[in-house]
């Protein structure tokens, strides 16, 4: 009968936009059928990996772009080269997130950046100018301190739980100070820029929510929504939720570190990876390109509540930002943003960064020592 393209689709239900375009594509490609399997976020990536490792890969899976290098090196996925035209259609730096060995290994489908949210009421209570968000780390720390000391409420929400997002949050600081973790095959984390970020973590911890190592970003966001923290780093989703609360808030680009060259952020993308050995690689690639092409993708990512940042500039996006100006900082950060570092053992890398952050946040280690140790540990995973 029909040939199938199996697709591990992360989430709780199939998005209506995707469902619509799958149908459209199937109509255009008779004899082909896309069979998505909806798997919860917590397990979808592991499931795709397990299937591939066991030798029965799916045709296509929704994966974090950070895993692409690992998959590619182990010969599990096929490259999905982009034409220059395609590359150009994206915001800058985004293609880098799926590039390794001068080849593209996935098609970006979801994208997120972060910005700084602040609680204007708390700023006022602390005697700060509620309309003036911090521009630099130094200000950020100072404001946090002021809030904590004046109001007794935490000034900053620092997520440091044993959770992938802890690494992400830290990478935002690295990229707002022009830092880098790995350069080609060289571990460069042991740099003054990264050390400054780690030192800033240490400095802001006392004014942060009690027990940073117990929270991940959604939990910190919940505290912000509850009005119990002055500032957080958050994605666009927070803004949507904030509209339903009594909190008087603002959003700004992430504050910059001393060595910053401009606004920065970590660029996190999720991609569609095409697995090797499914027998339908070509057609799957074709479908992946279709479903992420400007039309369907634009419709998908601009639904709002999902907290996605648009992948490509377009008039639609401009209109969107005009309507909801809080989108601006999320897009502004892209220019100086950096990709998630690609490692052969992505989880290994993540664990090292988390361990480093936690050891500093909990006061078990000094930033410099923690950084050295992390640099050494990372050698194994590059």
């Amino acid at each position, binding site marked *: 009968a029909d040939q199938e393209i199996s697709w591990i689709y992360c989430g709780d239900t199939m998005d209506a936009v995707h469902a619509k375009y799958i149908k459209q594509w199937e109509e255009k490609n008779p004899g082909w059928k896309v069979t998505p399997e909806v798997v919860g976020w917590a397990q979808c990536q592991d499931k795709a990996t397990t299937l591939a490792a066991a030798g029965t890969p799916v045709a296509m899976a929704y994966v974090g772009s950070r895993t692409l290098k690992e998959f590619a090196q182990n010969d599990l996925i096929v490259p999905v080269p982009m034409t220059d035209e395609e590359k150009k259609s994206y915001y800058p730096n985004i293609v880098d997130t799926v590039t390794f060995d001068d080849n593209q290994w996935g098609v970006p489908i979801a994208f997120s950046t972060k910005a700084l949210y602040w609680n204007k009421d708390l700023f006022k209570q602390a005697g700060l100018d509620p309309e003036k968000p911090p521009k630099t780390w130094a200000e950020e720390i100072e404001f946090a301190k002021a809030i904590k000391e004046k109001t007794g409420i935490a000034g900053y929400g620092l997520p440091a739980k044993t*959770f992938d997002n802890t690494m992400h949050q830290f990478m935002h600081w690295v990229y707002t100070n022009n830092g880098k973790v790995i350069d080609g095959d060289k571990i460069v984390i042991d740099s003054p820029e990264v050390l400054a970020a780690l030192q800033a973590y240490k400095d802001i911890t006392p004014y942060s929510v009690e*027990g940073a190592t117990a929270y991940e970003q959604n939990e910190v966001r919940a505290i912000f929504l509850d009005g119990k923290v002055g500032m957080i780093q958050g994605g666009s989703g927070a803004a949507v939720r904030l509209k339903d609360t009594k909190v008087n808030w603002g959003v700004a680009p992430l504050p910059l570190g001393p060595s910053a060259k401009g606004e920065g952020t970590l660029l996190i993308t999720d991609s569609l990876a095409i697995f090797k050995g499914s027998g339908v690689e070509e057609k799957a690639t074709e479908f992946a390109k279709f479903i992420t092409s400007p039309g369907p993708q634009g419709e998908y990512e601009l639904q709002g509540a999902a907290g996605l940042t648009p992948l490509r500039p377009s008039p639609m996006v401009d209109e969107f930002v005009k309507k909801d100006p809080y989108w601006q900082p999320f897009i502004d950060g892209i220019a100086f943003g950096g990709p998630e570092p690609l490692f052969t053992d992505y989880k290994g890398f993540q664990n090292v960064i988390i361990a480093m952050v936690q050891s500093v946040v909990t006061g078990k280690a000094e930033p410099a020592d923690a950084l050295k140790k992390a640099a050494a540990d990372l050698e194994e995973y590059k």
Partner: protein
Amino acid sequence: MSVQRSTIIFAWILLLPAVLYVTVIVAYPLVDTFILSFTDASLKKTTKWVGWANYDKIFNETFAEVIFRTFIWTFFSVSIKMIIGVFGATMLNAAVPGRALFRLLTMPPWIVPMAIGIFMWGWMYNGQFGMISGVLQNWGLIDGPIAFLARGETAFWATIVTDVWIGVPLVTLYMLAAMQAIPQDLYEAAWTDGAGRFYRFRRITLPLLVPSLITMSMLSLIATFNSFDIIWILTQGGPNGETTTMIIDTYRTAIGSKKYGEGAARAVLICIFLSIFCFAYFRVTSRLSSGEQK
């Protein structure tokens, strides 16, 4: 001779389905795991034999720490389970109105999907919104919120408490059954001799529970040593790796980092440790049962 032989054949016929089943489903993966532990199996399509390399690699400083932590964690969890189980069973064994209902009420942690139970505890431990921190604050016992999972020590105990919670119903039930199997006339005899309630508990109930306690501890030990979901969902082994036990470490290596070979070696080690426990257990029980009677 023939009668004897036909009996043995029959015994094997009875055992065969279960043995076959377990062999096919479990023994094969077990052997596979064992073999895997001597290879560098990973996401790579090819694997090669690496001998003891995986085992060599395991034994470093952190791992010694992990082993030590696993033992401590297991020890506390199992002992607390037993203590609370015996306490609960004692309470539920008391002839007071309502005990049928109370017995029923001990079952839920056992029935609820483990993940859900753990989520509920996650809520309780939450510093900002959780019940424990909240109630303590409302009562004025603590000043500000306490995030129980934020610090190594508290997270360590928090995971133990949750593990205990999940294991307690079954332990309580078994202990209750064991208590009810103690002949009533022993208590009557002691009472006739003037022994009070607590004295009877200490000198009769407790000693007679010992065999059941040992069996239960053994089964509990195996489950606890391998207890994965609780730590994984609550802390993922953090913070600072201070709740990382062997099974967490194994999972992180095998499933997280896809180092199947190294993960398998860790799994084999767990099995070896547990086998030693079991062996000791059989030793202890056979000694006990030879000393006493019926």
